[in-house]
C-alpha cells in the first residue's frame, strides 16, 4: 500500500503530534503562572494562630477581661469527604445530627481549610472526643485563646466582640485585620481595639493531598495585645449592676475632681461572654429585645435632665448677679404669663423661697422666674460651660452630645422664634433640652469641684504607658457661689424637706439634686445626681431610671445604696 493513503495517514499522524505539542506549549508556557499558582495553593497552607487580646484590669488589678484556653474540634473536609461512614461515626461520637453534619461538611467552601465543628468544648470533653474519634482521619482538637469576662457586670464598660463584617474588611485590612478576626463592637473593647488586638501569627506548612502536614516552612509567633488598666472598680460596678437590676436606666460613678470613672452601668445589662461563646439565642435576644440591652444609656441615652438642671440655672443667676443668695421669690404653685399657666410640682406652692430653699425643694416657680430674668442666652452659655450639648470625649464609643437648645438653634432647626415659654421650660431642664446621664454627672461634679469640669475617662495606663493626664475645662464660678450651691445641694439630701432625702447615708455628708423629667410618653424619667463628701468630694454619681417616676423616690434610694457601698469600700 503506497501513495496517497500513506501520505494522508502520515499527515494525520503529524497533525496529532503537533496538536499535542501546541497543547503542551499552551499549558506549560502561556498558562504556566496560572497553573503554578494553583499548584502552590494546593500544597502551601497557612494555619493562623490567633493572638490573645490584651487583658483589661480594674483599678485594683483585678482582671475584668481576660483570655482562657478554648478547645475547638476541627475537621479537614478534604479528608473526611471521601468517607461517608466516617461522618456518621463522627456525628455519633459528638451526638450531632448526621445529616446536618454531612451538610456542613459538603458546604465547606475550601476543602483544605479546617472546619470548626464544635467550638469551645471543655478540656475533659476534648479528651473524651479524641478518644472516641481515635482512628478517624482529619479530626483534631485545636486550641485558641478565648476572651473571657470574669465580671459580666462590667459589660457596659467593656463592650463585646464580634466578627468583622465583610464591608469593613477593605478599610481595616491595612491595619492588620483579617476576615477571621474578632473586633471590639462596643465599650472599651471597641475604643481600644487597636491596642487590645494582638498580631496574629501563623504556621506556613507544606501539606500533602490529604492535608497532612509534611513540613513547616515558616512560623510566626502570635503577639499578644497590649494590656489596659482602667479606673473601674469591679466591686462598685457589681453594686451598680445589682442596684439597677430590673430597671431600664443607667448609673455612673466618677471621681468628680479627676474624671476617673469608677463604675458605668446601663440596664438591662448584657453578658459580653455570650458573644465570644457563640451563645446564639442569648445574642439574638440582646439584639431583638425592645429594652435594647446593647444600648449604653449612660453615654448614648438622651433625656431631658429635668430639675437636675436647676443647679446650672441657679449658678448662672448667682454668677450673673441676677439674684443674690438671700433674695426670695414667691411660689404660689403656678406661674402665669402671657396667658400660659406653668405649674409648680407642689400644689399650693412653696411660698417665698430663696435659692437654697428653691433647690432644696426643687421649686419650679422660683426657677421659672429666675430663668426669665436670665434669658435663654445666659442659660445656654452657662449650660455650655457645664458641658451640655457636646460630647465629653470619654474613652468609650457611641457617646451622644445631647441637645442644648438656644434661640439660634431653634431658628435654624425649627424655623421658629424662641418664645418666653421656651425659656421657662428651659430653666427647669425641660423643653428641647436633652442630656446624657454622663453630662448630668459631669455638671454635678463641676458644681462639686468649684467649676472644674473634669474630662471623664476609664483608661489610665496602656501597658506601661501612662495615659491618665486629661486636660480639664473650667466653668467660671466664684467660690462664694460654689459654697451656696453646695449648701443647697446638701440640704436636698440632708434637710427634712429635701427632695433627695432617700439618698442619705449615715456618716456620709452627701449633696445632690433630684429630677423628675417629663417623658414624651409614659411615666417621667427619674434622676438623682450627687456627690460626697460635700467638703472634699471624692465620689460623684448619677442615677437615671427611665420612666422611674419621681426622682426623689427610687433614683434617690439607689443613689443612697451606692453611696453606702462606696463608704464601705473606703471611698468615703
Amino acid at each position, binding site marked *: *500500500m*503506497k501513495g496517497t*493513503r*500513506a501520505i494522508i*495517514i*502520515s499527515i494525520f*499522524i*503529524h497533525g*496529532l*503530534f503537533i*496538536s*499535542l*505539542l501546541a*497543547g*503542551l*506549549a499552551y*499549558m*506549560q*508556557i502561556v*498558562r*504556566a503562572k*496560572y*497553573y*503554578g499558582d*494553583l*499548584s*502552590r495553593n*494546593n*500544597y502551601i497552607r497557612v494555619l493562623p494562630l490567633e493572638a490573645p487580646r490584651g487583658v483589661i484590669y480594674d483599678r485594683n488589678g483585678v482582671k475584668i477581661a481576660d483570655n482562657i484556653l478554648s478547645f475547638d474540634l476541627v475537621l479537614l473536609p*478534604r479528608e473526611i*469527604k*471521601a468517607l461517608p461512614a466516617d461522618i456518621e461515626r463522627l456525628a455519633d461520637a459528638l451526638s450531632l445530627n448526621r445529616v446536618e453534619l454531612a451538610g456542613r461538611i459538603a458546604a465547606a467552601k475550601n*476543602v483544605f481549610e479546617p472546619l470548626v465543628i464544635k467550638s469551645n468544648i471543655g478540656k475533659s470533653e476534648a479528651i473524651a472526643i479524641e478518644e472516641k474519634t481515635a482512628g478517624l482521619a482529619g479530626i483534631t482538637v485545636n486550641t485558641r485563646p478565648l476572651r473571657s469576662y470574669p465580671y459580666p457586670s462590667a459589660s457596659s464598660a467593656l463592650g463585646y466582640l464580634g466578627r468583622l463584617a465583610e464591608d469593613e474588611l477593605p478599610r481595616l485590612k491595612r491595619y492588620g485585620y483579617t476576615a477571621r478576626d474578632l473586633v471590639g463592637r462596643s465599650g472599651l473593647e471597641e475604643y481600644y481595639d487597636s491596642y487590645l488586638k494582638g498580631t496574629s501569627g501563623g504556621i506556613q506548612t*507544606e*501539606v*500533602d*493531598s*490529604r492535608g497532612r502536614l*509534611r513540613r513547616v516552612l515558616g512560623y510566626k509567633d502570635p503577639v499578644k495585645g497590649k494590656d489596659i488598666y482602667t479606673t473601674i472598680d469591679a466591686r462598685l460596678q457589681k453594686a451598680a449592676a445589682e442596684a439597677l437590676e430590673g430597671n431600664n436606666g443607667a448609673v455612673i460613678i466618677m471621681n468628680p475632681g479627676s474624671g476617673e470613672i469608677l463604675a458605668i452601668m446601663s440596664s438591662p445589662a448584657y453578658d459580653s461572654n455570650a458573644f465570644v461563646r457563640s451563645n446564639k439565642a442569648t445574642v439574638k435576644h440582646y439584639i431583638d429585645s425592645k429594652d435594647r440591652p446593647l444600648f449604653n444609656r449612660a453615654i448614648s441615652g438622651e433625656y431631658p435632665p429635668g430639675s437636675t438642671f436647676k443647679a446650672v440655672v441657679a449658678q448662672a443667676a448667682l454668677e450673673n448677679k441676677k439674684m443674690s443668695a438671700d433674695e426670695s421669690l414667691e411660689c404660689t404653685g403656678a406661674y402665669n404669663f402671657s396667658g400660659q399657666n406653668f405649674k409648680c410640682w407642689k400644689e399650693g406652692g412653696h411660698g417665698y423661697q430663696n435659692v437654697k430653699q428653691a433647690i432644696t425643694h426643687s421649686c419650679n416657680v422660683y426657677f421659672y422666674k429666675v430663668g426669665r430674668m436670665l434669658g435663654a442666652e445666659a442659660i445656654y452659655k452657662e449650660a455650655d460651660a457645664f458641658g451640655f450639648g457636646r460630647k465629653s470625649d470619654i474613652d468609650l464609643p457611641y457617646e451622644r452630645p445631647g441637645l442644648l437648645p438656644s434661640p439660634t438653634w431653634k431658628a435654624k432647626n425649627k424655623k421658629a422664634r424662641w418664645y418666653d415659654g421656651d425659656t421657662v421650660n428651659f430653666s427647669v431642664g425641660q423643653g428641647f433640652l436633652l442630656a446624657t446621664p454622663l453630662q448630668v454627672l459631669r455638671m454635678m461634679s463641676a458644681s462639686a469641684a468649684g467649676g472644674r469640669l473634669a474630662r471623664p475617662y476609664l483608661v489610665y495606663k496602656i501597658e506601661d504607658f501612662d495615659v491618665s493626664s486629661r486636660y480639664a475645662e473650667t466653668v467660671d464660678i466664684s467660690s462664694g457661689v460654689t459654697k451656696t450651691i453646695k449648701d443647697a445641694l446638701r440640704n436636698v439630701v440632708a434637710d427634712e424637706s429635701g427632695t433627695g432625702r432617700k439618698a442619705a447615708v449615715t456618716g456620709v455628708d452627701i449633696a445632690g439634686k433630684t429630677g423628675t423629667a417629663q417623658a414624651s410618653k409614659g411615666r417621667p424619667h427619674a434622676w438623682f445626681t450627687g456627690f460626697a463628701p460635700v467638703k472634699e468630694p471624692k465620689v460623684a454619681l448619677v442615677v437615671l431610671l427611665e420612666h422611674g417616676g419621681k426622682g426623689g423616690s427610687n433614683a434617690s434610694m439607689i443613689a443612697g445604696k451606692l453611696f453606702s457601698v462606696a463608704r464601705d469600700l473606703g471611698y468615703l
Partner: protein
Amino acid sequence: MQFNTLRRSDPALPALTLIIMAAGLAVLYSASHNFGSQFLVRQLLWIGLGTVFISLILFINYYRIAGFSYYLYGFNILLLIAVILFGSVRMGAKRWLSFGGVSFQPSEFAKITVILALARYLGDIDRSDFRPGHFFAAAMIAFFPVLLIMKQPDLGTSLIFFPILLVMLYWKGVDIRYILSLIFMALAAAPIGWHLLKDYQKSRLLVFINPNMEPLGAGYTIIQSKIAIGSGGLFGKGWLAGTQNQLNFLPERHTDFIFSVAGEEWGFMGSCILVLLYLMFIKKVFRIAESSSDGCAGLTAAGIMTMFLLHVVINIAMTMGLMPVVGLPIPFISYGGSWMVASMIAVGILLSIDSLNRA
C-alpha cells in the same frame, strides 16, 4: 538466527524503545518511590519478560507467527471468556486472570492477536476482489473481542479496536465507501453504547466536558493532572521535586497519569522531548509498514502503529484534559505488566518484519 535477524534490522526502533523505557523508569521511580521500590522492581521484571518474548519472536520469525494468527486469536478469545467466568475484580473492573500467583490482562494481548488475525485475513484477500462479505468478516474479527472486553468493563481498550480496524482497512486499500459506512455505523451505535456504559464511565465522559462538575470526584484527577503539567512550566520542577506528584495530589500517577509526572518535573522541555521521541518511534513503525512488500506484514505493522499512536495521543491528551479519561496507558512508561509485555511483543513483531523486509 536471532542475531542475524537483529543485525539486519534498523537499530533506530529498538534504540528509541530503550530510550523511552529508560525515561519511563526514571518517571516511574519518581512517581512511586514514596511507596517503596516494588513498582520499579516489578516493572523491570516485566521488561525482562518482554525481552524474552522479543527474542522468542525473532527466533520464530513473523511469518511462522502469522501462520498461527487464527489460533492465537481463538486462544485469546477463550482467555477473555475465562476473564468473564473466573476473572478477579480489581478497582471495580474484572480484567485480570490469575494463574498460580501471576495475573495478567488478556484484553491487552487481544490488541495484538486481533491485529495479527485481521492482517492475516485481509492479507489473503485480493484488493480488487474485496466484497461486503469480507468487510463484515473483518468487522466480526475486530468486534467479537470488543463485546467481551466491554463486559469487563474496559472502555478505552474496547474503543481502540475500532480505529485499528479502520486504519487497517484503509491501509489495505478497500473502497472508501466501506470506510465511510464503518464511521457511520460507529456514530449510529454511539447512543446505544452510551446506555450500555456503567455510571462511572458516564461520569468520566461528562466530567471531561466540565471537570469542575465534580471537583473531588471524577473531575479531581483531571484538574490535578492539568495543574501538574501546567505548573511544570518551561523547565519543570526537577526530578523527584514535583509537588503535585510527591505530595500525592495526582491519583493513578504511576499508571494512566504518569505523563503528568514527567510534565511537572521535566517541564515543557522534557515533555516535548518525550512527545518527539514517540513521534520518531511512530514514524519508524510507519516506515516499516510502508516498506513491507508482503501485504500481511504491512497490515500488521500498520495495525500496531495505529495501536501505539492511539495509546500515546489519547493518553497524553487525557492528562492535559483534552480528552475524556478512558484508561489507555502510555507505551513503555505506564506501570503495568500486561501492557508492557504486550507492547514489547508488538515491538518484537515489528523488528521481525523489519528484518524480513531487509532480507
